[in-house]
């Protein structure tokens, strides 16, 4: 279609920029680029291929994200992109950008701790409250409102908050 005049690298850049505007439907302050869900954009024989990876195996947002990417690309003149889901390497919260972590905190969600701590069988984690910054916090439930979040409570300011689980 209209993309014929672009070189492959220009087309790739345009596609990346458009795909990177797509936000997580559950956490709309984070783009899929901030999250590390957007893995790769490539051009093969003039056709754009976008690779995304799920945060959790059963993440129900993947269908929505795929659709949103297709729509975002269509708006910049790329109507026939191939959006694929890849599993390897497995997504980790360590891929989340520093900007993404700051955005999460400002949104009221405690950003994930480094993934190295996740193996402790019983929680020795110190999560800072996104409202007041205190680390005098406790877990209410390992599983929160979405697959990627746990429910915590701050014992200083008494506010409950979501914690983006390290993964």
């Amino acid at each position, binding site marked *: 279609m209209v993309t014929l005049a672009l070189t492959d690298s220009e087309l790739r850049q345009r596609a990346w920029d458009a795909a990177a505007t797509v936000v997580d439907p559950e956490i709309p302050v984070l783009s899929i680029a901030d999250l590390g869900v957007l893995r790769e954009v490539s051009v093969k024989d003039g056709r754009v291929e976008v690779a995304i990876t799920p945060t959790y*195996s059963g993440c129900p947002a993947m269908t929505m994200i795929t659709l949103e990417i297709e729509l975002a690309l269509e708006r910049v003149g790329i109507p026939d992109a191939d959006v694929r889901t890849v*599993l390897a390497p497995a997504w980790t919260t360590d891929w989340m950008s520093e900007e993404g972590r700051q955005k999460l905190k400002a949104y009221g969600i405690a950003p994930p701790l480094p993934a190295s701590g996740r193996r402790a069988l019983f929680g020795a984690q110190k999560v800072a409250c996104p409202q007041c910054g205190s680390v005098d916090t406790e877990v209410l439930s390992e599983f929160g409102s979405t697959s990627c979040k746990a429910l915590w409570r701050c014992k200083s300011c008494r506010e409950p908050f979501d914690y983006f689980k390290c993964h």
Partner: protein
Amino acid sequence: MASASIQIGDDPLFLCALRRADDALILGHRLSEWCGHAPMLEEDMALANIALDLLGQARELYSYAAKVEGRGNDEDRLAYLRDERQYRNLLLLEQPNGDFARTMVRQLFYSAFADPYWRAMMNSSDPTLAAIAAKSEKESAYHLRHSSEWIIRLGDGTAESHRRAQEAIEHLWAFTGEMFEADAGERGLIDAGIAIDPASLREQWQSTVSAVLTEATLTQPTNPWMQQGGRGGRHSEHLGHLLAELQYTQRAFPGLTW
């Protein structure tokens, strides 16, 4: 469109993926039965979250099994069009939810196995299985921690919660031996570095379970007799009822999509 029940083949790699897919689907379905019924809101969400993780794992495993099988099946056909004798899940996982203690003991017994199983499978020479393992391993670590904490709370809680937790352990114990089995076909995959020997995880499983039960002031049964059959398609009476609910829509309206 097809409504007739499908029969599975005997390719070892297909069966290896299918067994794990069936485990994840059946346990995920059982946990989803708690949705709206859990003892508290947080736990309702937790059980639904774990079910969702398991359903995601099942979908990847079924898709891969269907690809390996190469007979035109897909994740939906494998899940919805097999009768119980064609299912290969562990008997433990199809057992009814019972009370909350029974659900949590079942979860602990399985998660204490699934967690090291997936961690070991990350080294599979099969790249798809290794990729699925790498995702599942992260999820199972949470499932194990969640169920461990609950067993400790129940066992070391009130007299009533202790009694129920102990009863659940006695009831489900005989279903734990099956996790460590591998048939001749799977032995070939183990030798080829594609699968791992489940028996090699027995010691680790025992040590996790012992640690949790001790902390919980609960007692591990000593009865060595173990129930078998699920891996060969011989199930308890409960699986048929579960499948009747799980498969109803596709059986009543073959090929339905929405």
